[in-house]
């Protein structure tokens, strides 16, 4: 009787144990369907604020090069990409603005200020 009740329990728990995975997969599919913007690099939602400015909710996308919790290198890499882009394409290039938004979204302001100072004094420790 212990064995049979264990097997019936196993069946119920077996269903429950895949509910987590199914829950997230289901939500992922649901959200992908609701985001009718397949070609954009970032998810964006547009609405109007009380000030009649259109505020689009978008930010740096999840980068597959940095899949883990530690995003320090992500922020650093975006900063370097922006500055490499400006040296390659000129200071006011629009394409580089994308990288600028990414690093500003990810990096704390103090880090950015410190790196800007280091760049000015020539002591920036990165492959610019």
């Amino acid at each position: 009787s212990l064995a049979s009740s264990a097997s019936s329990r196993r069946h119920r728990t077996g269903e429950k144990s895949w509910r987590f995975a199914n829950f997230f997969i289901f939500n992922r599919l649901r959200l992908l369907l609701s985001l009718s913007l397949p070609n954009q690099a970032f998810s964006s939602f547009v609405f109007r604020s009380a000030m009649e400015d259109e505020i689009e909710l978008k930010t740096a996308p999840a980068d597959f090069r940095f899949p883990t919790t530690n995003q320090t290198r992500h922020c650093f890499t975006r900063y370097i990409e922006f500055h490499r882009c400006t040296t390659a394409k000129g200071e006011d290039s629009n394409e580089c603005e994308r990288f600028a938004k990414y690093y500003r979204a990810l990096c704390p302001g103090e880090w950015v200020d410190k790196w800007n100072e280091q760049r000015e004094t020539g002591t920036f420790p990165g492959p610019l």
Partner: protein
Amino acid sequence: MIVLKWLFLTISPCDAAEPWQLGSQDAATPIMQGIIDLHHDIFFFLILILVFVLWILVRALWHFHYKKNAIPQRIVHGTTIEILRTIFPSIISMFIAIPSFALLYSMDEVVVDPAITIKAIGHQWYRTYEYSDYNSSDEQSLTFDSYMIPEEDLELGQSRLLEVDNRVVVPAKTHLRIIVTSADVPHSWAVPSSGVKCDAVPGRLNQISILVQREGVYYGQCSEICGTNHAFTPIVVEAVPRKDYGSRVSNQLIPQTGEA
């Protein structure tokens, strides 16, 4: 009917620590709901094992009492029971491990690009929040400090040691990325209703992805010893409807977009 419903069926979710609270706070994110469900799954097996072990223990103490049964029976081998008592715990461990690992890996999975990035920077002994998605220059568009409201300044109905002057305003039902770091010593950004506890390590950016599913105000406290006022640096997250998010955030501080 609606009046009756409002009078008697208003649900007030538990999003802050309650006195003598035993269970979890109410879930506001899928992660927390997953954690609560996992807890219920494991608790079931825990009660089974507890009852079984207590039963065996009490039975052994009862039947082998030195006055009633002076000669204890010596059993040295028993192949069947040895096999059973090895197999059954392994099966129970598997039932506990399967939902546990499913939750663990799905918590880390970022399946949808976040819509907003908020940086939570820990200081001694307050928090700074940066919303930098909209700057056009390196000047921060929205940065504010969040200090605990001291006990003498609390209004009636506010929680002691939990209220702050500036709350983190986030849109509900939106994927957020929260980057947690520290400017001095390690802190930890924890909001139990959202199932979030993330260490704020100086020099490191830790990312957490959450989706707050309902509007409300969620409280948490610093969870890594950081000095004298470690107990006095709480976190308050306020989830507002997405259409109100823009006006709330722009009213919080005068944005400095575009200024040099």
